[in-house]
């Protein structure tokens, strides 16, 4: 197996007095789409924040591209889009993207490229706060695509999108992975799991499975992702 692009070693995170991640050890394959799945409260967002370096870590290490997460050298190499669209509601789509491009030192043509990639060229002069939820999250996604990130960490990028747009974004993710970019995409929509190369299933602050969608279905003897997940969770429940 190729060396991991993201490496968490016995990662422990305590938030608000409660341990959210328990000695989590996991590696993420380069140039692939890894789906991060699990019920809400399972620690997906905390893991994502640890990887992009915004989370204070209690113990353990997180290494991205050979550097500790959050190192200055990584700030141009890791693209990040948080769960709630972190963009300015009182700026237009283009003004938002242009500002973050300046902060990242991305070139001017990049602004139009990413707006097109998320299919917002028609909306580029509208105020972000007046857009629908799905459109706002695409503005946020556009910002994550700026520059030349080698790792893209996307927290629920397809929430609130219609099937056509989801299809569009997943083919975008696929083309990015084909170009060698490593993607970590969290989701709670199980049919999206099928589109990932590898799945990382979390439950209560621990990784309970890391395998391809097919392996997961074979192992659990199920035909749909929904059934596979239910099976896995139930078998854990009885084991505990």
């Amino acid at each position, binding site marked *: 197996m190729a060396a991991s692009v993201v490496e968490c070693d016995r990662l422990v995170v305590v*938030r*608000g007095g409660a341990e959210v991640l328990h000695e989590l050890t996991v590696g993420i394959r380069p140039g692939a789409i890894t789906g991060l799945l699990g019920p809400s409260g399972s620690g997906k967002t905390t893991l994502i924040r640890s990887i*992009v*370096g*915004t*989370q*204070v870590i209690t113990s353990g290490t997180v290494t991205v591209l050979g550097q500790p997460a*959050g190192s*200055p050298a990584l*700030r*141009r190499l*890791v693209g*990040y889009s*948080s769960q*709630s*669209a*972190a*963009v*300015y*509601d*009182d*700026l*237009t789509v283009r*003004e938002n993207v*242009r*500002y*973050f491009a*300046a*902060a*990242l*030192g991305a070139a001017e043509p990049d602004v139009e490229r990413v707006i097109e990639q998320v299919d917002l060229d028609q909306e580029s002069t509208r*105020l972000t706060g007046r857009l629908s939820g799905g459109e706002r999250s695409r503005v946020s996604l556009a*910002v994550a695509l700026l520059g030349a990130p080698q790792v893209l960490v996307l927290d629920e990028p397809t929430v609130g999108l219609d099937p056509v747009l989801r299809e569009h974004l997943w083919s975008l993710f696929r083309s990015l992975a084909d170009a060698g970019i490593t993607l970590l995409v969290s989701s709670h929509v199980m049919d999206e799991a099928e589109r990932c190369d590898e799945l990382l299933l979390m439950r209560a602050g621990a990784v309970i499975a890391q395998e391809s969608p097919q392996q997961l279905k074979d192992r659990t003897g199920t035909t749909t992702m929904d059934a596979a997940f239910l099976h896995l969770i139930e078998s854990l429940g009885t084991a505990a």
Partner: protein
Amino acid sequence: MSLTVTMATARRVLTQLRHDPRSIAILIAVPTVLMILLRYVFNSAEVFSGLAPALLGVFPLTFMFIITSVTMLRERASGTLERLMTTPLSKLDLLVGYALAFGLFALVQVLIVVGVSVLLGMTLLGSLGWLLVVTSLAAELGVALGLLASAFARTEFQAIQLMPVVVFPQLLLCGLFTPRDQMATVLQWVSNVMPMSYAVSAITQVTAHSSLTTTYVRDALIVAGCTVVALVLAATSLRRQTP
């Protein structure tokens, strides 16, 4: 620190303001209307002339404090700050960008309010230019205190309530209501550590002296120094990593 990113931040903040014409109107109209009220409450150009210059320092400081603390708090709450902290942008790019943008806006506000005050009968012995310098410094102090104060609020509701906490005691003790040297000793001590006192003192120097005084220079430097200290403290309150 990068000049390009600082300027981009300043432009971004001003663009946000431009998309909110109602706030611009309030920020220009309110101090103007208050000046007109003040003039006719006393119904005397002389009394007005005694009070108005000091208020020209107090208004921009107060207004800039409110808009900066709320804007910065939004930046923290909406996740844009966290996102910016994952980019190469330095903390000072962000803070100085804010200071430039709101400083420029405050200058426009001050020019209009000073113009109206002159029309209402405010007279100065010193130059209008030096008055503008110290009012601009007071506005920058408001920006810096607002940036710092936003670290102590979790919601916009709390941020607004910090205004009376930070501004009102300074207003009472800055020499506007009673000359500072006539206050009780303890109050004078408190007044001495409040930056607004020096802004108002510098303004008093401009109104009472036709030439530049050393007291004015000292006071203006103190206000500028407090601004720098508040900005540096605000920078330390911005964290790349949060719990």
